[in-house]
């Protein structure tokens, strides 16, 4: 492989990594703060993708521009869901297991609804930039991916600012590190959890908007997404946000090379392989610490 091609693939891989990072960070945040493994995360992404798609097709609203609306809507849904479903179960010993079953049920409900409303036809929004490409020197990058990657970077940076420069962010990080300690210094951990859950869904919403024009989607596609994201999160380290970001970039780049060499069919297999290798060799993942999850 020539150096040019090598760098080209690297570029595409990094762009993809940014997008995967945005998709996975909500999942990681929710688990880290309140030990909820949200198996419906992918389904909410697809739901947002559908919403973005219809907004584009019916009202010509660009998917990138619909992101704020999407995030707001899913944030609200997250808060409501947390109040109704999860807060009543908090504190139970088998909490994580229960949330797995709960979110699984949610995913099924969503998938059925989406299938019923919008059928299983493959959808993809096609705003003008979806077909364009930017080239510089011997390299190119599709406009859609570039914009999506930039959007991810912006949103991830905002998240970083929230987590490290605001009082709320400190409360979130404290809750992630030691829930009891957070309580005894005055953090309302239940309130923090609720808002974080909303935040996690909002990030899924933004990812969905990007997904709508990047990848073709249909209702049952969410399983493939959630499986990849889960594998990625375990690889990076369950409960570690920097780990998730690192895992996203690493696996995306590797998968870009794998796709070039072996075709697109097996690219998701790479994530599953990474998952099993991680569990075999270093169960806490790249940046996970202490107790293996």
């Amino acid at each position, binding site marked *: 492989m020539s150096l040019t091609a090598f760098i080209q693939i690297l570029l595409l891989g990094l762009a993809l990594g940014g997008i995967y990072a945005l998709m996975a960070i909500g999942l990681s945040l929710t688990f880290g703060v309140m030990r909820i493994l949200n198996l419906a995360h992918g389904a909410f992404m697809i739901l947002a993708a559908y919403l973005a798609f219809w907004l584009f097709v019916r009202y010509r609203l660009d998917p990138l521009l619909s992101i704020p609306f999407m995030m707001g809507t899913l944030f609200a849904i997250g808060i409501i869901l947390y109040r109704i479903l999860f807060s009543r179960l908090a504190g139970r*010993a088998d909490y994580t297991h229960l949330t797995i079953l709960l979110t699984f049920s949610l995913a099924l409900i969503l998938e059925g609804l989406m299938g019923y409303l919008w059928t299983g036809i493959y959808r993809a929004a096609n705003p003008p930039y979806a077909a364009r490409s930017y080239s510089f020197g011997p390299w190119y990058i599709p406009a859609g991916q570039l914009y999506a990657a930039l959007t991810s970077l912006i949103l991830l940076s905002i998240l970083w600012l929230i987590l490290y420069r605001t*009082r709320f962010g*400190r*409360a979130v*990080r*404290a809750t992630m*590190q*030691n829930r*009891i*300690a*957070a*309580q*005894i*210094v*005055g*953090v*309302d*951990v*239940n309130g923090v959890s609720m808002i974080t859950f909303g935040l996690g869904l909002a990030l899924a919403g933004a990812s969905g908007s990007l997904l709508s024009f990047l990848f073709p989607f249909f209702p049952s596609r969410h399983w493939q997404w959630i499986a990849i994201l889960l594998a990625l999160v375990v690889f990076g380290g369950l409960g570690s946000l920097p780990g998730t970001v690192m895992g996203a970039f690493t696996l995306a780049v590797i998968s870009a090379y794998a796709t070039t060499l072996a075709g697109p069919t097996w690219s998701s297999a790479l994530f599953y392989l990474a998952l099993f290798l991680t569990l075999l060799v270093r169960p806490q993942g790249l940046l996970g610490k202490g107790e293996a999850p």
Partner: protein
Amino acid sequence: MALLRIEAIRAGYGHGPDILNGLSLELEPNRIYCVIGPNGAGKSTLLRVIMGLLRPRAGRVWFNKEDITGLRPDQIVARGISYVPQDRSLFPDMTVWENLLMGGYLMRDPRALSRRVEEILELFPVLRKHRSRRAGLLSGGEQQMLAIGRALILRPALLLLDEPSLGLAPLVVEQVFEIIRQLKAMSLTVLLVEQNVRKGLECADWGYVLDQGCLRFEGPAKAILEEPRLVVTYFGQRRGHP
């Protein structure tokens, strides 16, 4: 004029048996209280109930004439009670400085908070030395200092300490208890749970002996120390002696 009043508290974990069996006691302000008793007597459970980490099955907790039973821990902190758990419960990935900052989470004024953190660092010179060190990397004694320091940021009226000497070398234990003695001068009330009976009662004014969730005996700390029969009854042989 009791600062804290506990009335007939019954408490236990999950579906398990009652750990505290109708316990009642009162704390006056500006004193150091020490609770001693065998393992499983309910000493840590008592502190957890006061702090709102465990909801009692029966009974009430009064603080400054307010019924705080069933409030959340963060609400109780806001009312002036601070807690140092047995495992210190620090934020392992935050530095000493950041841990102390978190102690003042409820303070809205960042500058006042910074000043307060500096004050605490004055009190604990060993912490000042390590202010940028991650809490997870500190030694046992340093962690204990940090945990106490963090609890003091909000200037609580009542400080709950769960076995501060646990796992610490004798010299460090001495340092910790020196700090605790100084706390009294800060118009603080301290409720201390200790396995190290001697050290605990030596710096306390009043002692409570807890066994199987009930109050068996209370009295001036010195008296309990000098009454070897009590110690033997509840601890078998001469426990708690250095």
